[in-house]
């Protein structure tokens, strides 16, 4: 989208990131009976000024990865290096100050805006927290600039979030992220809650703001078409791991991982001619539970190209096949050359009986037995 300022130095680097949520059971004492492997060993780096798209289906860990990258969820293992600074051991005040440089835009614009705060106080809050509001006049000027940048009328300041339409609310959320002049914005499903006709407005806005302010984006979405449109590079996640990463056009032209191929072929295209001609790779069955991921390659239970034993036992590493094109598949070259053919896959039934503890458990743990019975 924009010229890379310094392609050799990444703005954010994630090294072997793991986020495992404990599953707790028990009436009196909470016993950890297992883990949900939400993110399980991801390496990626985002260059300054680029848009990195993270795509995958629900439960693949893409949102958790985004939050762990911002240290909003504590990673179980791994490192996050932001602009040369290791965030892993950072806590308290230094971390809070760091947050100015990395912001987030949420999926549901209504729930992510405090319903009791006016737009003005929502926007001023971040500036105040980082000492950016220097005097009444300069703050007012800054607020006008922000509203102008995201395309909201200047009368919005005294209004409350519930008085806006979905698209406008998302603009408020974006203005809030911009208010602290960040370098990185993590946008978690920024358009999926919006009406179709409004999605394009927000996508265009994100692109314009990137050019204007030189932002770096991590866009997390389930919609491959949106991700492909907005991103320079795309990473595809499946069950907590990155299975493929490539330049956006390259990924579309030649998806190498069987999962990416299937995902790509499943996205409906609003064109009957394309739809009639397309060959779909229909995956059998459902996403396995991240609490009990398959051994070996996570995708082998549904993979139409799966080969005996090696796929079941050995987890493939992400390796570079073409320049800038990384794939985690033992047989990527063979599949590309047509040496391995697709075969039928018997669907396995996936049970939905695992519970996820959504946030760090120290916060979420029920403090008493009667909690679920309480008002």
């Amino acid at each position: 989208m924009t010229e890379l300022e310094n392609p050799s130095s990444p703005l954010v680097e994630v090294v072997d990131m793991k986020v495992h949520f404990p599953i707790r059971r028990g009436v009196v004492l909470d016993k950890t009976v297992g883990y949900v492997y939400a993110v399980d060993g991801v390496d990626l780096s985002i260059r300054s000024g680029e848009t990195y798209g993270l795509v995958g289906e629900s439960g693949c860990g893409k949102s958790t990865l985004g939050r762990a990258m911002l240290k909003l969820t504590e990673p179980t293992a791994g490192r996050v290096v932001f602009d040369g600074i290791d965030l892993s051991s950072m806590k308290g005040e230094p971390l809070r100050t760091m947050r100015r440089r990395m912001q987030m835009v949420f999926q549901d614009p209504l729930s992510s805006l405090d319903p009791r705060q006016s737009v003005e106080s929502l926007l001023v809050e971040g500036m105040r927290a980082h000492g950016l509001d220097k005097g009444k006049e300069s703050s007012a000027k800054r607020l006008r600039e922000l509203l102008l940048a995201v395309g909201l009328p200047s009368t919005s300041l005294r209004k409350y979030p519930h008085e806006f339409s979905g698209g406008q609310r998302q603009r408020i959320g974006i203005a809030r992220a911009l208010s602290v002049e960040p370098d990185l914005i993590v946008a978690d499903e920024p358009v999926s809650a919006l009406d179709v006709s409004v999605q394009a407005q927000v996508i265009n806005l994100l692109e314009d703001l990137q050019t204007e302010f030189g932002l770096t984006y991590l866009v997390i979405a389930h919609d491959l078409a949106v991700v492909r449109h907005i991103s320079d590079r795309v990473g595809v996640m499946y069950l907590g791991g990155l299975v493929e990463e490539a330049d956006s056009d390259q990924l579309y032209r030649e998806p190498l991982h069987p999962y990416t191929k299937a995902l790509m072929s499943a996205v409906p295209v609003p064109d009957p001619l394309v739809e009639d001609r397309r060959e779909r790779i229909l995956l059998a069955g459902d996403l396995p539970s991240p609490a009990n991921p398959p051994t070996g390659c996570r995708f082998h239970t549904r993979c139409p190209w799966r080969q005996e034993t090696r796929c079941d036992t050995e987890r493939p590493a992400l390796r570079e096949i073409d320049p800038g094109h990384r794939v985690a598949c033992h047989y990527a070259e063979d599949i590309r050359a047509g040496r391995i053919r697709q075969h039928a896959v018997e669907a396995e039934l996936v049970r939905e009986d695992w519970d996820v503890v959504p946030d760090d458990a120290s916060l979420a743990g029920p403090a008493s037995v009667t909690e679920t019975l309480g008002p």
Partner: protein
Amino acid sequence: MALLEVRDLSVVFQRRGERPFTAVDGVSFDVEPGQTVGLVGESGCGKSVTSLAIMGLLAKRGVKISGSAKFDGTELLSLSDRQMRDRRGRDLGMVFQDPLSSLNPVVSIGLQVTEVLERHRDMSRKQASVEAAELLEKVGIPDPKRRLSEYPHQLSGGMRQRALIAIALACRPRLLIADEPTTALDVTIQAQILALLADLVRDTETALIMITHDLGVVAGLCDEVNVLYAGRVVERAGRHDLFRVPRHPYTHGLLASIPRLDAPRGERLSPIKGSVSDNIPWTTGCAFAPRCPNALDTCVQVTPAMEPDPVVAGPRLLRCHNPVEPATAAEQEIMS
């Protein structure tokens, strides 16, 4: 004669102390036996309310339904609750967006299927349970015999939707209404469910009304597409005609605003300005006029009528004073 004939269907929500809100405003369309008809539009366009009105599933209080919906010659809107319930079991099936809340959480999947079979197809319990297993197998649920004794929460979202489709199909309905059946599902699961629906429609010659906001879903599945805006149908055409030459500025705008997987990168999207709530009442003009790039003065003075397209050949109906020129429409199609 069409299987379902909807004429001038209107639904007005009227609450005490509030001004009435017209959710559906004179919608007419036909569904032929075995045909798949799409109702497409954004939130608040009245697509779901239309289907609920046809199925007799709207609350009685505070809702005024007018117009007609004839199924096989029978007026559905004047049926008693009891008669309607019977119809819903036998002739009309419905699949909803959220399979979890549409299934009874404390009754096993098997019982939910056999119940329908016993009531509407007069089967014995034993017959019904054999048939139920067959149905589950037909909709692609692995190991169907064991699934019968399981409960909805034990199945994944995709499997639940399959179970719901199995229940809807249990009585071999002649018309199936699917209200955003894949919106809550992942893309790969969506592809499975859409393929399943397409196969079922082909094999059993069930007519299908597909309600969705996703033009991509419509493009691959529907024979005829109705585009709704603010409670009215604004454009109707066969899917190939509609997507090749979208004539209504709203249809055209929608197609231009969605990023396409197969479009080259770096191209800017052309969004429709404003939001769905920026509309004027149909009584004073065209509801889409405030957002329309083609709007003329007449658009806010005269209500456009649903008329055959004067320019492009083919069975197309259009509600617009100033449609998008077919040339530019086709050009932009090629460009994108």
